[in-house]
């Protein structure tokens, strides 16, 4: 890992591309959802307009310092994952600041944004925020367990904690992908990914028509703009993380875009088919199926 000016500029360019791809991908998925419901739906560039609109709101209110910092923490969670995630395998420019222990750091960053947001939304003082946080954290805790088990299975299998090395070990054809070599870990992780992306059936935390939008109830204007910017980045980097861990990584941008699209589409596809779980149902589901799969993956690999 080296910190040169050109390296930092390349990383910023990567962030810009990832942000734009995240916004377009989000719009496309909503368009697909609308077509399933036989609607025209939003134009795919609608997320851009929404973002500009949110940043252009003239008034803001605050509930305190932590209320300010909530979206900032959330954004640093998303950008943090991006910074330490190698995007394109074998490329100096697009490997960002990945290093030998980046896998653990990225797992940490996944929870970091969530906790920051919980503190910020808590200061907002809205009862619905508190309920949303309670539900979100309990669901995410049960998501983390199978996901971490799958990642540990991978670390044992490839004998490394470096994402770049895990990608390198999967090169040479689909037969080398973790998806084939370690199907149980892949299944556990892909099922917990459904919860991490927060689409139906696991979208109780932020569903607009359950508890009005959950933790971000009080967030508006620029705060909401920051949260939405982060959501766009986070969707791509989470999909890219899973692409690197289980689906052979990407050797060029086209491959990255295709694979992240398909991985994100997996959660949207499931969401289109299945109705929403209540929180105790989703928690119970996560500790049943993905957790058992994760434990099997660990037992097999050890």
């Amino acid at each position, binding site marked *: 890992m080296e910190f040169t000016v050109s390296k930092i500029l390349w990383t910023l360019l990567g962030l810009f591309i990832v942000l734009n791809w995240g916004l377009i991908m989000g719009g496309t998925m909503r368009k697909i959802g609308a077509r399933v*419901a036989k*609607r025209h739906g*939003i134009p795919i560039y609608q997320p851009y307009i929404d973002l*500009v*609109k949110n940043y252009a709101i003239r008034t803001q*209110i605050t509930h305190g310092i932590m209320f300010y910092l909530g979206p900032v923490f959330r954004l640093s969670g998303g950008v943090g994952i991006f910074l330490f995630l190698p995007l394109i395998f074998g490329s100096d420019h697009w490997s960002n600041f990945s290093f030998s222990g980046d896998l653990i750091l990225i797992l940490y960053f996944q929870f970091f944004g969530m906790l920051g947001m919980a503190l910020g939304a808590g200061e907002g*003082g809205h009862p619905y925020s508190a309920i949303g946080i309670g539900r979100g954290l309990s669901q995410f805790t049960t998501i983390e367990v199978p996901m971490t088990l799958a990642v540990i299975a991978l670390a044992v299998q490839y004998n490394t904690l470096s994402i770049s090395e895990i990608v390198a070990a999967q090169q040479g054809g689909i037969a080398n992908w973790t998806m084939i070599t370690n199907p149980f870990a892949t299944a556990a992780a892909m099922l917990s990914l459904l919860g991490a992306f927060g689409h139906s059936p696991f979208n109780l935390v932020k569903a607009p028509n359950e508890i009005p939008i959950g933790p*971000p*109830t009080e967030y508006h204007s620029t705060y909401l703009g920051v949260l939405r910017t982060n959501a766009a980045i986070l969707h791509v980097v989470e999909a890219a993380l899973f692409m690197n861990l289980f689906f052979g990584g990407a050797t060029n941008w086209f491959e990255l875009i295709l694979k992240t699209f398909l991985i994100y589409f997996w959660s949207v596809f499931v969401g289109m088919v299945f109705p929403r779980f209540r929180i105790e149902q989703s928690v119970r589901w996560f500790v049943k199926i993905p957790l058992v799969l994760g434990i099997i993956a660990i037992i097999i690999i050890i």
Partner: protein
Amino acid sequence: MNRLTATEDKLPASVFGLPTNFLKMKETDDNDKFLHEENKKREATAPDGSIIEIDPMQDYFCDARPQVSEPYKIKIVEKFLNWARSESIWVLGFGTGCGSIEIPPLVTPRFDMFRYGVQMRPTPRQSNAFIISGYLSVKTLKRVIRSYEQMQSPKYVIALGSCTINGGMYWDSYNTINRLDQYMPVDVYIAGCMPRPEALLAGFGKLKELIKTGRAEKANEYVENFDWYKANQKKIIKDWNMPDYNW
């Protein structure tokens, strides 16, 4: 708690051509008797044993007067932002009267308001447009005012149905208001009883046109005539057990 002290010299001579001198109000503590028990001043013991005074109306609510929010000075930037605002109208999911039944069809394939950039939001903080859908009872008016004031500027109000214009078929009812624009500024009226969802879509089209041309600045009008609106609201809402300002 800041109490309303509307006097003749603070008010404009007329608003919408109506004289405002009938709005003389005297300073009273009448409001206190409507305060709910949990909103009254009280003393509490802190974890360290000290006694602290809690005044919910001061501690939990903001009592700053609203300010006029100016548009950007650079014309072309403001024009671009207005375009974005008009193409992304987030509507507060709040149904007030029988007209609220006309809103759900807008999200169905037949009318599909999403293609015009109109989306529903569940919280006033994130919403830009408020549809007053039909008659407004006094009890609901209070909630409407709270929700409207929690919305961030620029915000727009669409009045749906005849009841919001002159009371409609409820014009002599004992508990509904007749003219909405006495209590909050209205950007677009959609006449009819009830207007069809197509009319609502046409109303959104009109609102977009107003925003794009920079004529949808009613949020500032509310701020400029704040005392007049507050006096009107307090005249009709008898149990004013909330702070004067709700943001």
